């Protein structure tokens, strides 16, 4: 028997409450291998909260979250983050390059300014997400998909081993969604774990290797085809029966295609 290495990301008995309202309840989830991992569930199910709990942005009432077996504070440099697009004022007077450079601040510390190495890295990340020529544009003058990709480039500039993305495809047109997913898949292929909070079941079935269904608690987790069954979907999205049946059928079909 081989000794198991610590999982890349582990949630143990995680409970999060805002005031007296519980949002996440007893979540036990471990991701051991690098993959493209989706967190799926209805609105208000606590998906974003799960990521924020991992990053220490919301207080965890019970349980803990570990990265590579260690608390976040010890391995911050290995964790990258893409927050939701609405949290930012896009009228802020910064350029695309400025935003992507912020990804390097973690390594630079307080006093050092970004230098040539950081700028080259930033340009490389921008090229990866397909925004190569837009480095000097003010961020308010980008489309939704471009803004999302700027955030992704910033996360890539963090040069992390685990990436947590919160709704990176919200409000993005279909073509940009494809592009973003391709970048994420490439990152996964480099041996990184990519965790994505996602709202759309159809694309979820298409892209993710593994998923977790969340509805204030963990409903099911595992390889996508096995998890997105009509039964599980019914338990998660209680009340939307017809839709679920249809999606369940679509998922089952895809699962059969090689």
């Amino acid at each position, binding site marked *: 028997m081989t000794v198991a290495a610590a999982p890349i990301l582990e949630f143990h008995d995680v409970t999060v409450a805002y005031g007296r309202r519980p949002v996440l309840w007893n979540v036990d989830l471990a991701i051991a291998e690098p993959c493209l991992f989706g967190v799926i569930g209805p609105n208000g199910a606590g998906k974003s909260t799960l990521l924020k709990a991992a990053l220490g942005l919301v207080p965890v009432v019970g349980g803990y979250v570990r990265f590579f077996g260690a608390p976040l504070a010890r391995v911050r440099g290995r964790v990258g983050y893409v927050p939701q697009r609405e949290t930012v004022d896009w009228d802020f*007077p910064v350029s695309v390059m400025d935003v992507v450079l912020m990804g390097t601040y973690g390594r630079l510390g*307080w006093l050092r300014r970004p230098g040539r190495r950081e700028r080259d890295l930033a340009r490389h990340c921008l090229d990866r997400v397909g925004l190569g020529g837009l480095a000097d544009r003010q961020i308010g003058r980008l489309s939704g998909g471009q803004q999302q990709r700027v955030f992704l480039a910033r996360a890539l500039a963090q040069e992390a081993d685990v990436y947590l993305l919160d709704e990176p495809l919200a409000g993005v047109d279909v073509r940009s969604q494809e592009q973003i997913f391709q970048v994420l898949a490439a990152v996964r292929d480099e041996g990184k774990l990519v965790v994505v909070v996602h709202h759309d079941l159809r694309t979820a079935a298409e892209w993710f290797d593994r998923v977790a269904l969340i509805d204030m608690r963990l409903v099911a987790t595992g390889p996508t085809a096995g998890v997105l069954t009509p039964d599980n979907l019914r338990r998660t999205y209680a009340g939307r029966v017809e839709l679920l049946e249809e999606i369940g059928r679509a998922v089952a079909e895809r699962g059969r295609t090689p």
Partner: protein
Amino acid sequence: MMASAPTLAAWPPLVAVAAGPLDAGLTYNTLVVLAGVATVGFAAGVAGTLALLRRRPLVGDAAAHATLVGVGAAFLLTGRRDLPTLLAGALVSAVAALVVLVFLRRIARTRDDAATAIVIGVSFGAGLALLAGITARGLPGGAGLEQFLLGHTAALTAQDALLLAAVSCATVALVAVAFKEFVLVSFDDAFAAAIGRPVGLIDTALVALVAVMVVVGLPAAGAVLVTALVVIPPVAARQWTTRVGRMLLLAGLFGLAAAVAGVLASTLRPGLATGPLVVLTAAAICVVSFAVAPERGWLWRRSTLPAGEESP
């Protein structure tokens, strides 16, 4: 009591020597006031930009109104009314008011504008009541503390100007050093927290900087007007640039220009109060910026009508 006079006497000749090459129309008093007010104008513009970017332009207002309580309390507790003492009191109460403001927002879950209104109203009312109480009791030296409301720019002494300049320079230096952290937290505090920055601490530092500039601006423009110096130059600067670094610099320069122009204008005719002229100049710069700035300016946008509406 008179000990301060001989040391000051050594100063002015130095200043006079330095002023030699300058225009003969600048007197010592004008230079002193210029030195003090110009540095405050620059630093207030810079600090105010950070507050504006953090979407809290009214912290300056809250701090300014809260200083009155501190001025009165400092006088009551120490019995002295020299500038450093009163400013120290003003600083304590301004910071306290801002702490209460943050507290109301975060923990009492009050809305932003309601919380600001509460802090401004309560602290200003308490301050006025305190000063009225001092006046009514006839405490010696208590007269004229309300001058802090309106400022007495023309009567800045060399010592005062030095204090103002020192604090302003320290503020600008701090912003220059920690510039990227302030911008990071102002732009995306979730990301900043995720990479391990102490967002609460940086936020507090930012707000404290504004409080310090407001307090330091009290003698230069008075409590009521110093808010204008903190808010107007950044708003004007935003019209001209889309880069944060340039916006900070431009806001500082606009504040500086307003200060210099206001001070010089008040030397032209007797009876022109200096503080209000500084603020009026800043407002004029803002109006011009709104009208004339490229891309965001009103005139600019009018002159670039869609093709179909232009005459062929």
